[in-house]
């Protein structure tokens, strides 16, 4: 039956020619090959987010009066609702984590270099979008932590010189974080961001398909020196089956985390209550949060907060354009980028740990 369906398609669309690139595509095999799985795992987790997100939409109600209660309803009344929501929350965090790992692996294996500059840029934008997903989705249960995290987060956006204030009002749907903010964030989270992200993922994948997998420079040198030792693996089915195994393991980890440690809900947000002690953002914003806490109120004549925000903005922009800052074949700029990568990783890791340990 399978063969006859294929024949039918082949007769109409030249199926064999359409799928030829997929069958011709190969993946280099070397000692660092396992880093190739990270992007795929991130993609898989995004798929999980789409599926569980759609399931949550069946019961979720995006209004300040009903949001908390509807999530409570999902967690307590709907069969396996706790599991679906816990998977959504855990997969979100794992996805950000694997996206960061993917970004750093691409950086250290120097996969961003010519001709893959735009693949890096699209990937960086996807990473920012993932953080946008995290930020907007965090508010949707309308609990105390989410309410204050959103207040602080949108206030930070409001500190940006010139465009800050209108940007904050745009994000909040008014001067304050209210039900209007929830409605907006819901729209961003389930319509705007998924649309843009899906398009960009397609671009990202098309670029990878077009340019092939990058081979790290060290390995490439070896392969040119001893071409007889360079091995390749067919993408379909050899690599894909291995990737599927990685996905299955990721799913196992996800299921175990969601089942053994279901995501909490907290207490319903009260706009006229004080912020509780020990309030902190999601872990992937922690390094920025902690930095802003440490910056003095005034540096020279400027607000410390504003300087911190501008520095993070500049760092993000430079990071996105990193491949264009590396001059071809120049050892110095390569070492500079490697150093910056190690510094960034160390800074983010230590600030995150510091943030969790500090009172």
């Amino acid at each position, binding site marked *: 039956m399978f063969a006859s369906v294929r024949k039918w398609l082949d007769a109409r669309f030249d199926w064999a020619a359409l799928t030829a690139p997929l069958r011709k595509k190969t993946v280099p095999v070397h000692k660092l090959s396992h880093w190739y799985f990270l992007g795929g795992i991130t993609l898989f987790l995004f798929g999980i987010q789409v599926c569980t997100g759609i*399931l949550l939409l*069946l*019961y979720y109600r995006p209004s300040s009066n009903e949001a908390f209660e509807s999530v409570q309803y999902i967690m307590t*009344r*709907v*069969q*396996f*609702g706790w*599991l*679906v929501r816990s998977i959504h929350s855990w997969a979100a965090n794992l996805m950000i984590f694997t996206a960061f790992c993917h970004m750093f692996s691409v950086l250290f294996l120097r996969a961003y270099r010519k001709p893959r500059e735009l693949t890096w840029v699209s990937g960086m934008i996807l990473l920012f979008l993932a953080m946008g997903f995290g930020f907007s989705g965090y508010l949707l249960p309308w609990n105390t932590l989410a309410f204050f995290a959103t207040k602080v987060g949108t206030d930070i956006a409001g500190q940006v010189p010139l465009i800050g204030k209108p940007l904050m009002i745009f994000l909040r749907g008014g001067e304050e974080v209210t039900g209007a903010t929830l409605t907006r964030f819901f729209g961003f989270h389930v319509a705007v961001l998924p649309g843009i992200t899906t398009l960009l993922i397609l671009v990202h994948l098309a670029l990878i398909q077009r340019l092939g997998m990058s081979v790290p420079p060290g390995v490439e040198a070896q392969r040119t020196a001893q071409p007889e030792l360079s091995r390749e693996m067919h993408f379909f089915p050899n690599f894909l089956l291995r990737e599927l195994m990685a996905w299955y393991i990721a799913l196992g980890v996800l299921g175990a985390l969601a089942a053994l440690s279901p995501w909490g809900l907290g207490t319903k947000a009260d706009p006229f209550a004080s912020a509780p002690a020990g309030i902190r953002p999601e872990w992937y914003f922690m390094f920025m949060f902690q930095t802003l806490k440490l910056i003095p109120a005034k540096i020279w004549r400027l607000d410390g907060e504003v300087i911190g925000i501008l520095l993070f903005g500049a760092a993000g922009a430079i990071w996105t354009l990193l491949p264009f800052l590396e001059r071809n074949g120049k050892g110095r700029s390569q070492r500079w980028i490697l150093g910056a990568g190690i510094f960034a990783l160390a800074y983010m890791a230590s600030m995150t740990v510091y943030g969790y340990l500090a009172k």
Partner: protein
Amino acid sequence: MENTAVPEVGPTRRRVVELFLGSSMFASLVSFVYPLLRYLVPPPVADLGGDEVIAAKVGDLKLNAAKIFRFGNRPGLLLRIGEGEYRAFSATCTHLSCTVQYRTDLHEIWCACHNGMYDLNGRNVSGPPPRPLEKYQVHVRGEDLVVSRKREA
């Protein structure tokens, strides 16, 4: 000649591996699909209305008039067809669940969706409705018009 026995080992082993792989894949598929299907079924909503409701006050309805009242999660229709003579029905049309209304000009109960007609006993007299409307009891209790239905066994 010794080799002739060997080929049988291969396919059997392969079959065992396939059996293990296939059944574990099937098992994991079931473990994904079962919670999903259970999730899709909405939890039952408690009918908070009970079996009795105050549909109106005695002076509310004029002669040859009707009103829709809330009975649990569904609408009901209360008619006053004579002096002290009240009738109550489920207002949900038995055809495709539109809410019916009383036609003062025709003295009949009418469903606007598909032109279904019921008489004042709730019997389906013309149009597509397949069954009569469910009939409720009406009691006057002091100033209240109390509508009740028989508890379902």
